[in-house]
Protein backbone atom coordinates (compact mmCIF):
# COMPACT_ATOMS: atom_id res chain seq x y z
CA UNK A 1 0.00 0.00 0.00
CA UNK A 2 1.56 3.31 -1.08
CA UNK A 3 0.18 6.41 0.57
CA UNK A 4 2.07 9.57 -0.32
CA UNK A 5 2.22 12.03 2.53
CA UNK A 6 0.86 15.52 2.07
CA UNK A 7 3.38 18.23 1.44
CA UNK A 8 6.29 15.90 0.85
CA UNK A 9 8.12 16.24 -2.41
CA UNK A 10 10.29 13.20 -1.79
CA UNK A 11 9.32 9.90 -3.25
CA UNK A 12 8.17 7.71 -0.41
CA UNK A 13 8.86 4.07 -0.79
CA UNK A 14 5.56 3.05 0.64
CA UNK A 15 5.89 1.48 4.03
CA UNK A 16 2.66 -0.03 5.33
CA UNK A 17 0.84 2.66 7.31
CA UNK A 18 0.50 2.46 11.07
CA UNK A 19 -3.13 2.88 12.13
CA UNK A 20 -5.79 1.49 14.41
CA UNK A 21 -6.68 -0.91 11.60
CA UNK A 22 -3.16 -2.21 11.16
CA UNK A 23 -3.01 -2.69 14.92
CA UNK A 24 -6.20 -4.73 14.84
CA UNK A 25 -5.02 -6.73 11.82
CA UNK A 26 -1.70 -7.57 13.46
CA UNK A 27 -3.49 -8.58 16.67
CA UNK A 28 -4.91 -11.49 14.68
CA UNK A 29 -1.43 -12.91 14.06
CA UNK A 30 -0.26 -12.17 17.62
CA UNK A 31 1.82 -9.18 16.46
CA UNK A 32 4.41 -11.45 14.86
CA UNK A 33 4.12 -9.98 11.38
CA UNK A 34 5.23 -6.36 11.94
CA UNK A 35 7.70 -5.11 9.36
CA UNK A 36 11.08 -3.55 10.19
CA UNK A 37 10.73 0.17 10.80
CA UNK A 38 14.01 1.00 9.02
CA UNK A 39 16.74 -0.89 7.19
CA UNK A 40 20.26 -1.60 8.48
CA UNK A 41 22.24 -0.75 5.33
CA UNK A 42 25.97 -1.05 4.73
CA UNK A 43 27.55 2.38 4.27
CA UNK A 44 27.86 3.38 0.59
CA UNK A 45 31.22 4.80 -0.56
CA UNK A 46 29.66 8.19 -1.27
CA UNK A 47 26.62 10.31 -0.35
CA UNK A 48 25.31 13.75 -1.29
CA UNK A 49 25.12 14.61 2.42
CA UNK A 50 26.30 12.88 5.59
CA UNK A 51 24.72 13.71 8.94
CA UNK A 52 26.87 12.85 11.97
CA UNK A 53 24.74 11.92 15.00
CA UNK A 54 21.51 9.93 15.04
CA UNK A 55 19.68 11.87 17.71
CA UNK A 56 16.35 13.53 17.05
CA UNK A 57 17.98 16.60 15.50
CA UNK A 58 20.18 14.59 13.11
CA UNK A 59 17.37 12.27 12.03
CA UNK A 60 14.99 15.20 11.51
CA UNK A 61 17.65 16.95 9.41
CA UNK A 62 18.05 13.88 7.21
CA UNK A 63 14.30 13.49 6.83
CA UNK A 64 13.80 17.09 5.70
CA UNK A 65 16.84 16.95 3.39
CA UNK A 66 15.31 13.98 1.61
CA UNK A 67 11.64 14.91 1.77
CA UNK A 68 11.72 18.68 1.24
CA UNK A 69 14.98 19.35 -0.57
CA UNK A 70 15.02 16.32 -2.79
CA UNK A 71 18.54 15.33 -1.75
CA UNK A 72 18.34 11.64 -2.41
CA UNK A 73 21.55 10.10 -1.13
CA UNK A 74 21.72 10.98 2.56
CA UNK A 75 23.31 8.99 5.38
CA UNK A 76 22.94 9.39 9.14
CA UNK A 77 26.04 8.03 10.87
CA UNK A 78 25.51 7.16 14.55
CA UNK A 79 28.23 5.81 16.82
CA UNK A 80 25.88 3.70 18.93
CA UNK A 81 22.12 3.36 18.51
CA UNK A 82 19.78 6.10 17.32
CA UNK A 83 18.15 8.14 20.08
CA UNK A 84 20.58 6.79 22.70
CA UNK A 85 22.07 10.23 23.42
CA UNK A 86 20.22 13.16 24.93
CA UNK A 87 17.19 12.44 22.75
CA UNK A 88 16.48 9.29 24.78
CA UNK A 89 17.56 10.77 28.11
CA UNK A 90 15.61 14.00 28.30
CA UNK A 91 12.47 14.88 30.22
CA UNK A 92 10.61 15.83 27.03
CA UNK A 93 9.33 19.28 27.98
CA UNK A 94 8.12 21.24 24.96
CA UNK A 95 7.29 24.96 24.99
CA UNK A 96 7.97 28.09 22.94
CA UNK A 97 7.60 30.86 25.54
CA UNK A 98 11.08 32.38 25.17
CA UNK A 99 11.96 36.01 25.73
CA UNK A 100 13.82 37.16 22.61
CA UNK A 101 12.40 37.43 19.09
CA UNK A 102 15.09 35.14 17.64
CA UNK A 103 14.21 32.41 20.15
CA UNK A 104 10.48 32.88 19.77
CA UNK A 105 10.90 32.40 16.01
CA UNK A 106 12.73 29.10 16.19
CA UNK A 107 10.93 27.50 19.15
CA UNK A 108 7.51 28.52 17.85
CA UNK A 109 8.46 27.19 14.41
CA UNK A 110 9.22 23.89 16.14
CA UNK A 111 6.01 23.92 18.18
CA UNK A 112 3.91 24.45 15.05
CA UNK A 113 5.64 21.47 13.43
CA UNK A 114 5.05 19.35 16.56
CA UNK A 115 1.33 20.06 16.26
CA UNK A 116 1.06 18.08 13.01
CA UNK A 117 4.05 15.78 13.33
CA UNK A 118 2.45 12.48 14.38
CA UNK A 119 0.31 12.64 11.22
CA UNK A 120 3.15 13.72 8.97
CA UNK A 121 5.47 10.96 10.17
CA UNK A 122 2.66 8.40 10.57
CA UNK A 123 4.09 7.63 14.00
CA UNK A 124 2.39 8.24 17.33
CA UNK A 125 4.74 10.67 19.10
CA UNK A 126 2.35 10.84 22.06
CA UNK A 127 2.54 14.61 21.74
CA UNK A 128 0.49 15.98 24.59
CA UNK A 129 -0.26 19.70 24.94
CA UNK A 130 -0.85 19.41 28.65
CA UNK A 131 0.57 22.88 29.35
CA UNK A 132 3.79 24.07 30.94
CA UNK A 133 3.70 26.17 34.10
CA UNK A 134 6.77 28.03 35.36
CA UNK A 135 6.71 29.12 39.00
CA UNK A 136 7.96 32.36 40.55
CA UNK A 137 9.25 32.23 44.12
CA UNK A 138 10.01 35.88 44.77
CA UNK A 139 8.48 39.22 44.02
CA UNK A 140 11.34 40.07 41.71
CA UNK A 141 10.89 36.85 39.76
CA UNK A 142 7.16 37.53 39.48
CA UNK A 143 7.77 40.99 38.02
CA UNK A 144 10.33 39.62 35.61
CA UNK A 145 7.82 37.01 34.51
CA UNK A 146 5.06 39.55 33.84
CA UNK A 147 7.49 41.43 31.65
CA UNK A 148 8.41 38.23 29.84
CA UNK A 149 4.77 37.29 29.30
CA UNK A 150 4.19 40.62 27.58
CA UNK A 151 7.19 40.10 25.29
CA UNK A 152 6.04 36.57 24.46
CA UNK A 153 2.52 37.71 23.66
CA UNK A 154 3.83 40.42 21.37
CA UNK A 155 5.33 37.58 19.35
CA UNK A 156 1.89 35.99 19.07
CA UNK A 157 2.68 33.13 21.43
CA UNK A 158 0.17 32.04 24.07
CA UNK A 159 1.21 32.86 27.60
CA UNK A 160 -0.63 33.87 30.78
CA UNK A 161 0.33 35.03 34.26
CA UNK A 162 -1.19 32.96 37.05
CA UNK A 163 -1.89 33.67 40.72
CA UNK A 164 -1.12 31.15 43.49
CA UNK A 165 -4.84 30.33 43.78
CA UNK A 166 -5.09 29.57 40.05
CA UNK A 167 -1.97 27.46 40.32
CA UNK A 168 -3.44 25.47 43.21
CA UNK A 169 -6.49 24.79 41.08
CA UNK A 170 -4.39 23.57 38.17
CA UNK A 171 -1.98 21.55 40.33
CA UNK A 172 -3.81 20.31 43.43
CA UNK A 173 -0.75 18.51 44.86
CA UNK A 174 1.26 21.74 45.17
CA UNK A 175 1.77 23.45 48.53
CA UNK A 176 1.17 27.21 48.14
CA UNK A 177 1.38 28.13 51.82
CA UNK A 178 3.45 31.29 52.44
CA UNK A 179 5.51 29.49 55.10
CA UNK A 180 7.62 27.61 52.54
CA UNK A 181 11.28 28.55 52.32
CA UNK A 182 10.59 29.43 48.65
CA UNK A 183 6.87 30.19 48.59
CA UNK A 184 4.87 30.13 45.34
CA UNK A 185 4.28 33.79 44.43
CA UNK A 186 2.68 33.05 41.06
CA UNK A 187 3.77 31.80 37.69
CA UNK A 188 3.20 31.83 33.95
CA UNK A 189 1.59 29.22 31.81
CA UNK A 190 1.72 28.11 28.17
CA UNK A 191 -1.21 25.84 27.38
CA UNK A 192 0.21 24.77 24.00
CA UNK A 193 3.34 23.44 25.67
CA UNK A 194 3.59 19.90 26.95
CA UNK A 195 5.48 16.66 26.36
CA UNK A 196 6.12 13.98 23.72
CA UNK A 197 7.53 10.47 23.81
CA UNK A 198 11.28 10.96 23.26
CA UNK A 199 12.12 7.55 21.73
CA UNK A 200 9.17 7.84 19.39
CA UNK A 201 10.58 11.08 18.02
CA UNK A 202 13.83 9.35 17.04
CA UNK A 203 12.01 6.29 15.72
CA UNK A 204 9.34 8.26 13.86
CA UNK A 205 11.91 10.42 12.06
CA UNK A 206 14.11 7.38 11.38
CA UNK A 207 11.25 5.42 9.83
CA UNK A 208 10.10 8.34 7.71
CA UNK A 209 13.66 9.19 6.63
CA UNK A 210 14.34 5.56 5.72
CA UNK A 211 11.18 5.61 3.66
CA UNK A 212 12.62 8.55 1.70
CA UNK A 213 15.77 6.53 1.03
CA UNK A 214 18.01 7.82 3.83
CA UNK A 215 20.59 5.27 5.03
CA UNK A 216 20.64 5.08 8.83
CA UNK A 217 23.97 3.58 9.80
CA UNK A 218 24.23 2.64 13.47
CA UNK A 219 27.30 1.43 15.39
CA UNK A 220 29.48 3.56 13.16
CA UNK A 221 31.59 6.21 14.86
CA UNK A 222 33.03 9.17 13.00
CA UNK A 223 36.74 9.37 13.85
CA UNK A 224 37.87 12.08 11.46
CA UNK A 225 36.64 14.80 9.12
CA UNK A 226 38.63 14.92 5.90
CA UNK A 227 39.08 18.14 3.95
CA UNK A 228 40.99 19.40 0.95
CA UNK A 229 41.54 23.00 -0.18
CA UNK A 230 39.32 24.36 2.58
CA UNK A 231 36.35 22.14 1.72
CA UNK A 232 35.08 18.99 3.37
CA UNK A 233 35.54 15.77 1.37
CA UNK A 234 34.08 13.17 3.71
CA UNK A 235 34.26 11.44 7.08
CA UNK A 236 36.51 8.70 8.43
CA UNK A 237 34.48 6.16 10.36
CA UNK A 238 34.98 2.88 12.19
CA UNK A 239 33.44 1.31 9.08
CA UNK A 240 35.66 3.04 6.55
CA UNK A 241 35.84 6.35 4.73
CA UNK A 242 32.58 7.84 3.46
CA UNK A 243 32.89 10.48 0.77
CA UNK A 244 30.60 13.51 0.82
CA UNK A 245 30.84 17.17 -0.12
CA UNK A 246 28.32 18.12 2.56
CA UNK A 247 28.66 17.08 6.21
CA UNK A 248 26.27 18.18 8.96
CA UNK A 249 27.44 17.61 12.51
CA UNK A 250 24.68 17.17 15.12
CA UNK A 251 26.38 15.50 18.06
CA UNK A 252 25.21 17.54 21.10
CA UNK A 253 27.68 17.05 23.99
CA UNK A 254 30.36 15.67 21.64
CA UNK A 255 30.36 18.68 19.31
CA UNK A 256 33.64 20.07 20.64
CA UNK A 257 35.38 16.79 19.80
CA UNK A 258 33.94 16.81 16.29
CA UNK A 259 34.98 20.44 15.79
CA UNK A 260 38.55 19.58 16.82
CA UNK A 261 38.58 16.87 14.11
CA UNK A 262 38.04 19.64 11.59
CA UNK A 263 40.57 21.97 13.23
CA UNK A 264 37.85 24.23 14.65
CA UNK A 265 36.95 25.31 18.19
CA UNK A 266 33.54 26.02 19.70
CA UNK A 267 32.32 28.09 22.64
CA UNK A 268 30.77 24.97 24.17
CA UNK A 269 31.25 23.30 27.56
CA UNK A 270 29.96 19.74 28.04
CA UNK A 271 28.21 19.15 31.35
CA UNK A 272 26.13 16.35 32.86
CA UNK A 273 22.40 16.96 33.20
CA UNK A 274 20.51 14.48 35.36
CA UNK A 275 16.92 13.36 35.67
CA UNK A 276 15.04 10.66 37.55
CA UNK A 277 11.70 8.88 37.74
CA UNK A 278 9.67 7.59 40.66
CA UNK A 279 7.81 4.32 40.81
CA UNK A 280 4.59 4.51 38.77
CA UNK A 281 1.45 5.71 40.54
CA UNK A 282 -2.07 6.78 39.59
CA UNK A 283 -2.38 10.17 37.86
CA UNK A 284 -1.73 13.05 40.28
CA UNK A 285 -0.48 15.81 37.98
CA UNK A 286 -1.64 16.45 34.41
CA UNK A 287 0.59 19.36 33.44
CA UNK A 288 4.30 20.21 33.57
CA UNK A 289 5.56 22.45 36.38
CA UNK A 290 8.99 24.01 36.33
CA UNK A 291 10.74 26.08 38.91
CA UNK A 292 13.98 27.84 38.07
CA UNK A 293 14.58 29.24 41.55
CA UNK A 294 14.67 25.83 43.24
CA UNK A 295 16.12 23.97 40.22
CA UNK A 296 13.42 21.37 39.89
CA UNK A 297 10.64 20.42 37.52
CA UNK A 298 8.02 17.71 37.47
CA UNK A 299 5.57 15.94 35.16
CA UNK A 300 3.94 12.53 35.05
CA UNK A 301 4.51 10.06 32.26
CA UNK A 302 1.73 8.00 30.70
CA UNK A 303 3.14 4.98 32.57
CA UNK A 304 2.50 6.85 35.83
CA UNK A 305 6.09 7.59 36.80
CA UNK A 306 6.76 11.08 38.10
CA UNK A 307 9.53 12.55 35.96
CA UNK A 308 11.87 14.95 37.76
CA UNK A 309 14.62 17.09 36.34
CA UNK A 310 17.25 19.36 37.85
CA UNK A 311 19.98 21.81 36.89
CA UNK A 312 23.29 20.75 35.35
CA UNK A 313 26.18 19.45 37.42
CA UNK A 314 28.83 22.11 37.96
CA UNK A 315 31.80 20.49 36.22
CA UNK A 316 32.73 19.47 32.66
CA UNK A 317 32.19 15.81 31.89
CA UNK A 318 31.69 13.26 29.14
CA UNK A 319 30.72 10.44 31.52
CA UNK A 320 26.92 10.47 31.03
CA UNK A 321 26.49 10.52 34.80
CA UNK A 322 26.49 13.21 37.45
CA UNK A 323 26.84 13.58 41.21
CA UNK A 324 24.40 12.80 44.00
CA UNK A 325 24.16 16.32 45.52
CA UNK A 326 22.19 17.45 42.46
CA UNK A 327 19.66 14.68 43.01
CA UNK A 328 19.45 15.39 46.75
CA UNK A 329 18.82 19.06 46.03
CA UNK A 330 16.16 18.23 43.45
CA UNK A 331 14.36 15.84 45.81
CA UNK A 332 14.47 18.30 48.72
CA UNK A 333 12.73 20.89 46.55
CA UNK A 334 10.23 18.33 45.28
CA UNK A 335 9.25 17.21 48.78
CA UNK A 336 8.78 20.77 49.96
CA UNK A 337 6.62 21.86 47.01
CA UNK A 338 4.73 18.56 46.58
CA UNK A 339 4.59 16.88 50.04
CA UNK A 340 2.77 13.84 48.58
CA UNK A 341 5.95 12.68 46.81
CA UNK A 342 7.88 12.15 50.06
CA UNK A 343 6.73 8.55 50.29
CA UNK A 344 7.57 7.57 46.73
CA UNK A 345 10.59 5.54 45.79
CA UNK A 346 13.07 6.68 43.17
CA UNK A 347 13.18 4.08 40.44
CA UNK A 348 15.92 5.24 38.07
CA UNK A 349 18.30 8.17 37.78
CA UNK A 350 20.48 8.92 34.76
CA UNK A 351 22.47 11.66 33.08
CA UNK A 352 23.19 12.97 29.62
CA UNK A 353 26.01 15.23 28.43
CA UNK A 354 24.62 18.58 27.36
CA UNK A 355 26.38 21.13 25.16
CA UNK A 356 26.06 24.45 26.96
CA UNK A 357 26.70 27.72 25.11
CA UNK A 358 27.71 31.05 26.72
CA UNK A 359 24.38 32.68 25.80
CA UNK A 360 22.22 29.57 26.36
CA UNK A 361 21.23 29.59 22.68
CA UNK A 362 22.13 27.08 19.98
CA UNK A 363 24.60 27.26 17.09
CA UNK A 364 23.18 26.49 13.63
CA UNK A 365 25.95 27.53 11.33
CA UNK A 366 28.23 27.24 8.38
CA UNK A 367 31.92 26.97 9.33
CA UNK A 368 35.19 28.19 7.81
CA UNK A 369 35.37 24.75 6.14
CA UNK A 370 33.19 24.74 3.03
CA UNK A 371 30.43 22.12 3.13
CA UNK A 372 30.81 21.52 6.87
CA UNK A 373 27.90 22.63 9.05
CA UNK A 374 27.29 22.48 12.80
CA UNK A 375 24.04 22.27 14.74
CA UNK A 376 24.74 22.16 18.48
CA UNK A 377 24.72 24.13 21.71
CA UNK A 378 21.12 23.26 22.53
CA UNK A 379 22.29 22.44 26.03
CA UNK A 380 19.57 21.59 28.51
CA UNK A 381 16.67 22.47 26.25
CA UNK A 382 16.87 21.20 22.70
CA UNK A 383 14.32 18.40 22.65
CA UNK A 384 11.46 20.85 22.21
CA UNK A 385 13.22 22.28 19.16
CA UNK A 386 13.82 18.95 17.39
CA UNK A 387 11.49 19.41 14.38
CA UNK A 388 12.31 23.10 13.92
CA UNK A 389 16.03 22.53 14.30
CA UNK A 390 16.05 19.71 11.74
CA UNK A 391 13.89 21.77 9.39
CA UNK A 392 16.11 24.87 9.31
CA UNK A 393 19.35 22.87 9.41
CA UNK A 394 18.32 20.83 6.36
CA UNK A 395 17.60 24.11 4.61
CA UNK A 396 21.02 25.47 5.58
CA UNK A 397 22.79 22.35 4.29
CA UNK A 398 20.79 22.25 1.06
CA UNK A 399 21.15 25.97 0.23
CA UNK A 400 24.53 26.64 1.84
CA UNK A 401 23.07 29.74 3.52
CA UNK A 402 20.91 30.14 6.62
CA UNK A 403 17.25 31.10 6.30
CA UNK A 404 15.74 33.93 8.35
CA UNK A 405 15.05 31.71 11.37
CA UNK A 406 18.54 30.18 11.47
CA UNK A 407 20.50 33.34 10.58
CA UNK A 408 20.91 34.73 14.14
CA UNK A 409 22.41 31.42 15.30
CA UNK A 410 25.72 31.67 13.47
CA UNK A 411 29.10 31.02 15.05
CA UNK A 412 30.07 34.59 14.09
CA UNK A 413 27.78 35.99 16.78
CA UNK A 414 30.53 35.33 19.32
CA UNK A 415 32.83 37.63 17.38
CA UNK A 416 30.30 40.34 16.55
CA UNK A 417 28.76 40.26 20.02
CA UNK A 418 25.16 39.71 18.81
CA UNK A 419 24.48 37.14 21.52
CA UNK A 420 20.98 35.80 22.14
CA UNK A 421 21.03 35.74 25.91
CA UNK A 422 18.38 33.26 27.03
CA UNK A 423 19.80 32.55 30.48
CA UNK A 424 16.68 34.07 31.99
CA UNK A 425 14.31 31.93 29.98
CA UNK A 426 16.32 28.73 29.89
CA UNK A 427 17.59 29.09 33.43
CA UNK A 428 18.12 25.60 34.59
CA UNK A 429 15.08 24.11 33.21
CA UNK A 430 13.69 23.60 29.79
Amino acid at each position, binding site marked *: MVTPTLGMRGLRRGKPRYSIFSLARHALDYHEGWQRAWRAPEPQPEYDAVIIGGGGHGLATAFYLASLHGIRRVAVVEKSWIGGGNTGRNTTIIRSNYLWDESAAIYEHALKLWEGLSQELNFNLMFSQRGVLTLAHSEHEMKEMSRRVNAIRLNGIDSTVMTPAQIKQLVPIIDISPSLRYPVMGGFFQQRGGTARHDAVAWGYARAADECGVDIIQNCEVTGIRQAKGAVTGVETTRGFIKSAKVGCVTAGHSGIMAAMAGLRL*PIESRPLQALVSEPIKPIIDTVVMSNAVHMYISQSDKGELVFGAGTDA*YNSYAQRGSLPVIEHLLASAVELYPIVSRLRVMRTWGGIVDTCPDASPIISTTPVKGLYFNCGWGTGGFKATPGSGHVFADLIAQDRPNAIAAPYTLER*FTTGSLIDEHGAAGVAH
Partner: protein
Amino acid sequence: MLLIECPWCGPRDEAEFAYGGEAHIARPTEPDKLSDAEWAEYLFLASNPRGTYLERWRHAHGCRRWFNAVRDTYTHEIIEIYAMGSLPKSKLGIQAYEDSWRRGSAAEQNAKRGSAKS
Protein backbone atom coordinates in the same frame (compact mmCIF):
# COMPACT_ATOMS: atom_id res chain seq x y z
CA MET B 1 30.20 12.17 43.59
CA LEU B 2 33.68 13.65 43.67
CA LEU B 3 35.94 13.51 46.71
CA ILE B 4 38.18 16.56 46.34
CA GLU B 5 41.36 17.09 48.31
CA CYS B 6 41.55 20.73 49.36
CA PRO B 7 45.28 21.53 49.74
CA TRP B 8 44.51 23.20 53.10
CA CYS B 9 41.60 21.21 54.56
CA GLY B 10 42.12 17.72 53.13
CA PRO B 11 39.62 15.46 51.36
CA ARG B 12 36.11 16.90 51.35
CA ASP B 13 32.77 16.23 49.73
CA GLU B 14 32.20 17.83 46.30
CA ALA B 15 29.21 19.73 47.68
CA GLU B 16 31.60 22.01 49.63
CA PHE B 17 33.29 23.26 46.46
CA ALA B 18 32.51 25.72 43.70
CA TYR B 19 33.72 25.11 40.17
CA GLY B 20 35.88 27.71 38.46
CA GLY B 21 36.12 26.29 34.93
CA GLU B 22 39.21 26.05 32.76
CA ALA B 23 42.56 26.95 34.33
CA HIS B 24 45.48 28.90 32.84
CA ILE B 25 43.48 31.31 30.67
CA ALA B 26 45.73 34.34 30.52
CA ARG B 27 43.88 37.65 30.48
CA PRO B 28 45.15 39.99 27.76
CA THR B 29 46.72 43.06 29.34
CA GLU B 30 46.26 45.19 26.21
CA PRO B 31 42.82 44.14 24.93
CA ASP B 32 42.73 46.99 22.42
CA LYS B 33 45.60 45.32 20.54
CA LEU B 34 43.47 42.24 19.85
CA SER B 35 41.15 41.86 16.87
CA ASP B 36 37.49 41.03 17.54
CA ALA B 37 38.15 37.42 16.55
CA GLU B 38 41.12 37.15 18.93
CA TRP B 39 39.08 38.67 21.74
CA ALA B 40 36.20 36.28 21.05
CA GLU B 41 38.65 33.40 21.15
CA TYR B 42 39.85 34.49 24.59
CA LEU B 43 36.39 35.24 25.93
CA PHE B 44 34.23 32.44 24.54
CA LEU B 45 36.09 29.54 22.98
CA ALA B 46 36.43 26.53 25.25
CA SER B 47 38.93 23.69 25.36
CA ASN B 48 36.31 21.27 26.69
CA PRO B 49 38.40 18.09 26.17
CA ARG B 50 37.27 14.53 26.70
CA GLY B 51 40.07 13.33 28.98
CA THR B 52 42.71 15.30 30.88
CA TYR B 53 41.48 18.76 31.85
CA LEU B 54 43.15 21.53 33.82
CA GLU B 55 40.52 23.30 35.88
CA ARG B 56 39.97 25.54 38.90
CA TRP B 57 38.06 24.88 42.10
CA ARG B 58 37.27 26.90 45.20
CA HIS B 59 36.60 25.47 48.65
CA ALA B 60 33.50 27.68 48.93
CA HIS B 61 32.07 26.18 52.13
CA GLY B 62 35.46 25.67 53.80
CA CYS B 63 38.60 27.77 53.69
CA ARG B 64 37.31 29.61 50.59
CA ARG B 65 40.64 29.30 48.85
CA TRP B 66 41.20 28.64 45.16
CA PHE B 67 43.33 25.85 43.69
CA ASN B 68 43.89 24.02 40.41
CA ALA B 69 43.18 20.39 39.56
CA VAL B 70 44.08 17.95 36.78
CA ARG B 71 40.97 15.84 36.25
CA ASP B 72 39.87 13.34 33.63
CA THR B 73 36.48 14.43 32.29
CA TYR B 74 35.57 10.90 31.24
CA THR B 75 36.55 8.85 34.32
CA HIS B 76 36.22 11.81 36.77
CA GLU B 77 39.56 10.72 38.29
CA ILE B 78 41.40 13.61 39.99
CA ILE B 79 45.00 13.17 38.92
CA GLU B 80 46.63 16.10 40.68
CA ILE B 81 45.83 19.11 42.84
CA TYR B 82 48.20 22.09 42.59
CA ALA B 83 48.37 25.68 43.75
CA MET B 84 47.00 28.69 41.91
CA GLY B 85 49.74 30.42 39.96
CA SER B 86 51.76 27.22 39.54
CA LEU B 87 51.90 24.63 36.75
CA PRO B 88 50.94 20.94 36.95
CA LYS B 89 53.68 18.43 37.79
CA SER B 90 52.04 15.15 36.78
CA LYS B 91 52.90 13.75 33.34
CA LEU B 92 49.32 14.04 32.09
CA GLY B 93 49.00 17.53 33.52
CA ILE B 94 52.20 18.79 31.89
CA GLN B 95 51.18 17.30 28.57
CA ALA B 96 47.71 18.86 28.71
CA TYR B 97 49.25 22.22 29.55
CA GLU B 98 51.81 22.10 26.75
CA ASP B 99 49.40 20.74 24.12
CA SER B 100 46.73 23.37 24.75
CA TRP B 101 45.93 25.68 21.82
CA ARG B 102 45.88 28.53 24.33
CA ARG B 103 49.71 28.51 24.54
CA GLY B 104 49.88 29.92 21.02
CA SER B 105 46.80 32.14 21.26
CA ALA B 106 46.93 35.86 20.63
CA ALA B 107 45.45 36.51 24.08
CA GLU B 108 48.25 34.64 25.84
CA GLN B 109 50.97 36.30 23.74
CA ASN B 110 49.40 39.65 24.55
CA ALA B 111 49.28 38.85 28.29
CA LYS B 112 52.96 37.83 28.23
CA ARG B 113 54.02 41.03 26.47
CA GLY B 114 52.07 43.07 29.01
CA SER B 115 53.62 41.39 32.04
CA ALA B 116 57.13 41.69 30.57
CA LYS B 117 56.65 45.45 30.31
CA SER B 118 55.28 46.05 33.78
